[in-house]
């Protein structure tokens, strides 16, 4: 824990800033930090932001089966969603399938593409999130495109990647240029550290800001109220991710 917050609390605060103003945030399975960030934004909005968390009973109001998340997104009712990837490249292509060797006999096989090649196209604000920032993950070119970061003109694509959050930094994504731009370095992280651990090229502004630390009122909310809510779905995460409440 540095500067009065845990690493997880910092990432939650970074993601939360990206979600402000969203009417409806959906969060996929196995995503405690995005889930906590969405719940934080909902608390800050006084309930104006709606949150759907797959795997949660209390935060999942769907009544039309497994297709509803995707239908709902295609209707334009989901403003933000999260995706990750075993590999992610500089064009924001993501690979959730495998690496090494030839598909489908990859040396490493990941679970599969889930709804990525749909939600990445229709959700306006897709936030890429990985808790590992290494050259193993951030590659020059993914070995299998589960979902492409950008599409050719004429392809129906109201949605796409907006930003990427890692333990080292925040990237913004420029959809027109198909490139990441370093938006801020987390406290204590250097540009060289990011370059050393990133396998793709990205834009760097003349002055790189430092990621703002979590605001005290948000830390209070996280520790006093969100921790309990997220524990319904991720009890182990809730037990370890937060500093004690003041």
């Amino acid at each position: 824990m540095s500067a009065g917050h845990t690493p997880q609390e910092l990432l939650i605060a970074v993601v939360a800033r990206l979600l402000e103003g969203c009417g409806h945030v959906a969060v996929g399975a196995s995503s405690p930090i995005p889930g906590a960030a969405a719940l934080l934004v909902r608390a800050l909005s006084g309930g104006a932001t709606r949150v759907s968390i797959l795997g949660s009973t209390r935060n999942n109001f769907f009544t039309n089966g497994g297709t509803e998340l995707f239908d709902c997104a295609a209707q334009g009712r989901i403003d933000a969603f999260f995706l990750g990837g075993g590999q992610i490249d500089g064009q924001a292509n993501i690979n959730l399938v495998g690496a090494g060797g030839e598909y489908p006999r990859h040396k490493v096989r990941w679970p599969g593409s889930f709804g990525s090649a749909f939600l990445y196209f229709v959700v306006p604000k897709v936030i890429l999130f990985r808790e590992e920032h290494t050259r193993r993950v951030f590659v020059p070119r993914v070995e299998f495109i589960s979902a492409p970061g950008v599409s050719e003109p004429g392809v129906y694509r109201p949605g796409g990647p907006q930003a990427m959050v890692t333990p080292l930094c925040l990237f913004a994504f420029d959809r027109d240029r198909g490139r990441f731009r370093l938006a801020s370095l987390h406290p204590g992280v250097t540009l060289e550290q990011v370059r050393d651990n990133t396998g793709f090229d990205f834009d760097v502004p003349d002055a790189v800001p430092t990621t703002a630390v979590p605001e005290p009122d948000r830390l209070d909310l996280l520790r006093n109220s969100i921790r309990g809510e997220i524990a319904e779905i991720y009890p182990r995460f809730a037990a370890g991710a937060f500093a004690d409440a003041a």
Partner: protein
Amino acid sequence: MGNSTITDLDDLAARVPDGAQVVVPPDYSGVAMAATRALLRRGVRGLHLVAMPTSGLQADMLVGAGAVAMVEAASITMGEFGGAPCFVRALREGRIAMRDATCPALHSALQAGQKGAPFMPIRGLLGSDILAHRDDWRVIDNPFADGSDPVVLVPAIRPDVALFHAPLADREGNVWIGVRRELLVMAHAAHATLVTVERVQDENLLDDPRTAAGTIPALYVSAVAEAAQGAWPLQLWGHYGLDGEHLRTYVAQARSDEGFAAYMAEHVTGKAEAAE
């Protein structure tokens, strides 16, 4: 096409022919694990397994036992317990064919089957390697668009068999699935629907408008077998959680062929389980 048969697990398992296209739900939606073990005991072979749209333990065990020729899925994973060991191994060794898909593409293909529509258009996918490897899918130009608007078409899925576990059925063979509507779509689309339930009740589920709203009518249900804890070691929504310790044991054992064989002997083909 009268009421559906109320039967037992072995009869249910006997109704899945070798080589059948079988559609199964995701781990959280009611997986017929007791029936899957019965299916493994009867030595089923050559299945074309369609996960609607994902699967985990069930797919892994069937693949591990050599019962599967092809897997179609948006994801095969044991979730927080890790990858699906037998599936990953079989894929790497080329022992199963794989059709990667997306969740909504699979849902749409099944809904096309439900509707008797030959295909369904599905957004996304363009520029992905999923599409590049699906020679059974087509891309057309949306005939309603002013300019060019390529869109992927997926052919209807009409599985031979839908297999799942639900909390409740009645003596007519109506099955209560609550908000898990993908189970209803599966039953509508499939030629035969085999269901295990925690309990068969006397009262007709369609008589109460509240339960009727979450019920698959018997018309779509071929056979029902009672199997208490029938999703174990997976969860059944609103009834019981998953057995994390057992799943961790499974994943550890299934990392090798020998370990998987030992697991099968102990939990599937062994004497204790045979009485299931």
